[in-house]
């Protein structure tokens, strides 16, 4: 039995359906992420788990017991808010002690638990400070310590790292992973940053317009996106609309308008002539070279139209004769040169037959 069960939950605001018949099972000890663009319903769903909002239909169960009718203050679920919401008139220690005081724990227990929590987030010397005297990262850690100190069954995190700069965010991500492993509490994390979701989670639920588009482990979400939305949202992806012309021995010929005929490894059920679908191809699987190499797999000649220099790699957009642009990712190593190709160069792009992935819409 899963720790947190969300069954057929629906939430409407007037005409707008924020959460549309979502069902999820979240296991104990899992780092579970709700990922999606703004307005996809992830925050609404989180608020319903916390108790600040009620589902119009469906139910939410914790340890098999429905949470309906239980107000937030009685749920063993705590939230780390996006703005941290630390009490400005209380010290760091008093902030962390707050949930324990609300649970009417004895004073000496509170003292020792607070000291322990401060050590866990490495803020022991800051116990007597006030929130306005702390940096963003430190406030972040106090917010997390406060929500974890009385061991809730589930910790909800609402985009907690969005206010931090890139470097600090990376550090906090690693800290969060370690903290979650150490404490073993189930985390339900909400973010719109797909890189963050891939880095932190055991499983990701990709959401769009109130529905779960795909629920899977990060590597499966990345390598085997189930539809156009997921393929496009996670990382960069080449997406080509095409129709299967012929299929034989597990290899299909996909006619892509503006590109040509692409050879693609297909599963048996997909390998039917006439099937229309999407070819999803990650740029790192596309090789780019200046010579006309007769290669294995698919080869197309084109001109570099755009490039995006990212320091360690460069992403090239190569325009093929038919008009379609193919994105190729190339590492920037090479003695003396920072880039291999310039805009306007004629190049050949190639990828293996099994590099791409066939999707239905």
């Amino acid at each position, binding site marked *: 039995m899963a720790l947190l069960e969300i069954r057929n939950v629906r939430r409407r605001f007037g005409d707008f359906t924020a959460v549309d018949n979502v069902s999820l099972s979240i296991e104990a000890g899992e780092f579970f992420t709700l990922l999606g663009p703004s307005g996809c319903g992830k925050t609404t769903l989180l608020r319903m788990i*916390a*108790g*600040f909002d009620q589902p119009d239909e469906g139910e939410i169960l914790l340890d098999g017991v429905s949470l309906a009718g239980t*107000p*937030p*203050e*009685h749920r063993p*679920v*705590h*939230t780390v*808010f996006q*703005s941290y*919401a*630390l*009490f*400005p*008139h*209380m*010290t760091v*220690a*008093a902030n962390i*002690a*707050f*949930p324990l005081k*609300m*649970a009417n724990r004895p004073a000496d227990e*509170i*003292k*020792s638990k*607070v*000291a322990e929590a*401060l050590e866990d987030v490495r803020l022991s010397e800051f*116990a*007597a400070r*006030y929130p306005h005297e702390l940096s963003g990262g430190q406030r972040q850690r106090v917010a997390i310590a*406060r*929500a974890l100190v009385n061991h809730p069954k589930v910790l909800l995190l609402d985009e907690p790292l969005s206010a931090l700069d890139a470097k600090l965010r990376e550090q906090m991500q690693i800290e969060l992973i370690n903290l979650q492993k150490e404490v073993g509490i189930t985390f339900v994390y909400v973010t719109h940053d797909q890189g963050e979701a891939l880095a932190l989670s055991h499983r990701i639920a990709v959401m769009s317009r109130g529905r779960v588009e795909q629920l899977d482990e990060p590597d499966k979400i990345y390598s085997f996106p189930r539809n156009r939305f997921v393929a496009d949202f996670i990382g960069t992806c080449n997406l080509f609309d095409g129709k299967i012309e012929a299929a034989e021995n597990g290899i299909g010929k996909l006619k892509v308008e503006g590109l040509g005929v692409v050879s693609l490894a297909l599963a048996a059920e997909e390998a039917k002539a006439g099937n229309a679908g999407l070819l999803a191809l990650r740029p790192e699987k596309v090789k780019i070279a200046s010579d006309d190499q007769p290669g294995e797999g698919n080869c197309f000649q084109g001109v570099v139209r755009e490039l995006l220099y990212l320091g360690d790699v460069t992403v090239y957009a190569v325009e093929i004769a038919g008009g379609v642009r193919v994105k190729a990712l190339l590492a920037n190593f090479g003695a003396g040169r920072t880039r291999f190709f310039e805009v306007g160069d004629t190049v050949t792009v190639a990828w293996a037959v099994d590099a791409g992935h066939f999707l239905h819409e």
Partner: protein
Amino acid sequence: MARWLVSGPPLLYLTIFFVLPCLIMVLASFRSPGDYGGLAPLHDENGNLDLSFDNYTRFVSDFIYAKVFLKSLTYALTTTVVCLVMAYPVAMLIAHSSKKYRDLLLLLVILPFWSNFLIRVYAWMIILGPQSALSRAVNAVLALFGMQPVEMLFSGFAVIVGLVYVHLPFMVLPLYANLEKHDPALLDAAQDLGANAWRRFWRVTFPLSLPGVFAGAALVFIPALGIFAVSDILGGTGGIMIGNVIKQQLLETRDWPFGSVLSIILTAVALLVAGGAAWVARPKREGVEHV
């Protein structure tokens, strides 16, 4: 140089029309009253400087004046507390209202100021007077329990009612200004961490509102302490406050030195109390003993 051009005129104004009169009053408190009121000449018939502590000793030895002072303090304090209790829910209501109602509600709070202060106080004479509907209703209820009818007007009670009525907006507005700025996420966080509505109020909302509470209390207590119009109109003989005594000394008895003494002592007491309250109610810091 330009700075002095800007601050100069107001400073000059304050010096001439505020500081100087205060100094005159301080000097007057050491002089003797004139034969027909006012002040006696600074130098008496023999050419000696006629200054003494006589007026101050009179204040200390004649206990009645201290009694009136104490009563004024009590009235002012009661007014402040009643205003706080009444204004807090109103301020919270306005702070939580949607934008369109908020402006209307604030207007309603300020509206009384559009009419004359004295007329509003006189209105209470009618409301509390023996012929009023309220009086008759109250006395009818009392008669049911076999008790004597009471006269609400011309009593300490009427003075407090008048004081609260007049000062209430001064408590509502600073409280509202403070409450309006509270981050609603703080209450969400408190609730999320286990606090019910009662605890959310006393542990988050009220401590954060203390600066507003103090500001409102200062705006009510200090004026209420020195008021004389309300107690004059509604108080009768039973509701005399120190403001009335000062007015009487300066305008009727025309014992200016003694009136000055009372004024100076009133100012000193108000400053003392206001300063003490400010120190006590500085933004509350809640800590926990840590290892």
